[in-house]
């Protein structure tokens, strides 16, 4: 395996434009005060914001143009996710992203034509149901089952941590078939036999749900055509790269909050940033953010280049970015002192997102285990 990443990461002016557009739009549309108002009002899904994001083309950013997407690359997504992570964009974006990728990976032409245009247009909120309680992010831990009956299938099992599950009208879910293979199914919601129960997410900007499939009858067309295991693996690689970028963006925001506070806040007649016990951890935070950003960009560029090492880079990125974000919020609270411990201080929103996203699609422990197999056992 070669760890190839194109020298310039495939970066173009187009990428710079997207960053500028995203930063401008989110800066105006989602200042922290707006986000707080939404959360205080208990709005977990802002339909106006969703529509605007759809109009910007973000919901179909990496989906093919022939199905209503923008047909852009993974480095575009990296940049967008960083910006969205910086602003803690609330709502079911991540679920729709993952479902879209899974449909593109596993769906036939007609299945893609059926679902992707509505996802890209934001008319349909979609999500991916993968994890089961006690299970993990590897397909071989799945216990939910799909059994063939009368030319269709019966689906049984319970999925947890489904992003935006309660807002979705389409769920792509992973089941095990009697052959032992994984298959992906696209199920329109509501459907009889499917129960959806809100979870109380630690991160109010990212609501999740438990979805139960209690003997749900679906037709053969619900089963996505391609090999489910491979499609799921490909979806997770892309999802890890995207989520890592979002984590980098979040950690960047925490870094800037802490930096500003260390310059503003005075104790012992000096800004606290003068003290090295404050200054040095902030520098380490910055180094972590920059290193993780390099892996997130590397994973995206490797995907764009079709490199077989993209999986290695995506796992590295998700592992490091998750740890860096977690460490940033830890220092973020501490350096803000008593204020950092309050609801008023913005850091806890990032703290929540960091805690939520670290294990999602696999934490660092999970990815290092896979990386060890890929890098220590292979030659």
């Amino acid at each position, binding site marked *: 395996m070669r760890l190839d990443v194109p020298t310039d990461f495939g970066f173009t002016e187009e990428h710079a434009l997207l960053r500028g557009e995203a930063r401008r739009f989110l800066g105006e549309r989602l200042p922290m005060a707006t986000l707080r108002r939404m959360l205080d009002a208990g709005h977990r899904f802002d339909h106006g914001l969703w529509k605007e994001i759809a109009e910007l083309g973000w919901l179909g950013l990496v989906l093919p143009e022939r199905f209503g997407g923008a047909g852009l690359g993974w480095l575009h997504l990296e940049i967008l996710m960083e910006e969205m992570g910086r602003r803690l964009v609330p709502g079911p974006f991540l679920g729709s992203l993952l479902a879209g990728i899974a449909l593109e990976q596993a769906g036939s032409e007609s299945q893609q034509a059926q679902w992707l245009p509505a996802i890209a247009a934001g008319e349909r909120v979609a999500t991916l149901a993968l994890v089961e309680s006690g299970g993990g992010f590897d397909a071989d831990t799945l216990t939910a089952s799909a059994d063939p009956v009368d030319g269709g299938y019966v689906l049984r099992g319970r999925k947890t941590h489904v992003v935006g599950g309660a807002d979705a009208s389409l769920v792509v879910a992973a089941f095990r078939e009697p052959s032992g293979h994984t298959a992906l199914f696209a199920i329109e919601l509501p459907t009889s036999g499917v129960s959806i129960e809100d979870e109380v997410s630690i991160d109010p900007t990212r609501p999740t749900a438990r979805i139960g499939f209690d003997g749900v009858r679906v037709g053969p067309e619900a089963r996505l055509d391609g090999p489910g295991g491979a499609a799921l693996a490909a979806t997770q690689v892309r999802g890890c790269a995207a989520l890592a970028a979002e984590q980098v963006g979040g950690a960047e925001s925490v870094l800037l909050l802490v930096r500003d506070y260390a310059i503003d806040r005075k104790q012992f007649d000096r800004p606290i940033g003068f003290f090295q016990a404050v*200054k040095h951890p902030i520098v380490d935070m910055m180094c972590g953010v920059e290193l993780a950003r*390099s*892996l997130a960009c590397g994973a995206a560029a490797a995907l764009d280049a079709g490199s077989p090492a993209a999986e290695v880079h995506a796992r590295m990125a998700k592992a490091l970015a998750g740890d860096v974000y977690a460490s940033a919020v830890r220092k973020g609270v501490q350096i803000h002192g008593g204020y950092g411990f309050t609801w008023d201080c913005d850091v806890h929103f990032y703290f929540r997102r960091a805690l939520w996203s670290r294990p999602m699609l696999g934490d660092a422990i999970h990815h290092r285990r896979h990386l060890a197999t890929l890098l220590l*056992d292979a030659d």
Partner: protein
Amino acid sequence: MSRPEEATESKENAEFRREVRAWIAANRPSDPGFKLPQSFLEVESDRQFEFLRDWQRKVYEAGYLGLDWPAEYGGHADPHKRQRIVSQELNRAGAPFLVNVIGLQWAGPTILAYGTEEQKQRFLKPILSGEEIWCQGFSEPGAGSDLASLQTSATPSGDGWVVAGHKVWTTLAHVAKWMILLARTDPAAHKYAGISYFLFPMEAPGVTVQPLVKMTGEGGFNQVIFDAAPMPKDALLGQLGQGWQIAMTTLTFERGAAEGSGGGSTAPTGESVRAVTSLARRMRRDGRSAAEDPVLRDRIAQGWIDEEALRLTAQRARVPGLNMDDRPLATRLMNKLVYSEFGQRITELACEVLGPDAGLWLGDASAPDKAEWPRMYMNSFGMTVGGGTSEIQRNIIGERVLGLPKTK
């Protein structure tokens, strides 16, 4: 596992890389049969020095040094700036290092930036060929992290200067022909304003070089005592009193925060973790391969993540659009800190992989890899202390990149 970069670089560069690789394979010296230093910091004996200098001359004569330097000073003015490729290939081949590091990486680029035409004509070419070795006289017993408090003085005398004072930790001073020297020329001026930068001839009378022994037992650095040592008028580099500013330029090169070296840089290429992986496969622990131990596997995987993150950060530093617009210098200024700290972690990890054999030292006949790992771990502190300690790097980054208040 094969290497990054090659598949994605331009045709000319890939071609050049193949050519360099073939040349190294055909020309690298065979094992001399005596202990070689691990880096330019530990050169102690004459035979080590001659062996290394011969190698540098050979690389130079093959046309692989000074690629990025102007042709009129012995360089090649390579439009593709391919010195980096040469150093990557030398590094990967495990070829001996280029001994004149201080000349190639620090003194040379500084002379290019501040030297007179005569100084550039005089000094640059022998740096590339290895004919004239350079050392760096910055640190003093009382002036380390607080370099600007240095006391060594240069006083006008006749047509030139005389130097009095005491420099310490001076790497390669025992074989150097020239020293980049910081000396106080105006004791009345402000701490920073009173310093000037000189190109000092080590053969001058009144100079005593005394070797110091490192924690590994090796030599390689020295103290240098100046007792009314004369130097000519044109030893001055830049303007009188400009020494601090020029020294900061030198340190920028030394810390890998700027490109311009005559012999490439030391950016990580992924070699360290590959070597630790191969070590783990060879070592046994609890009756099985150390590469099967779940905890070690996790730690080594972290090493892969860290080294790849460093490698990609060096690559990303050259793509302005992928660097934060409000801190464009971040990825360059953090180089020294993150490379040297990584070097320490990975060599310490190698010692853990060794298990009880980490307790075997140079000279033990059955020590794995001739006990190079514990030696490397010890020597890694030379990198986290030398060139400005990690703590000082954090101050610099905090202040210059993040705008935090200054620590004096």
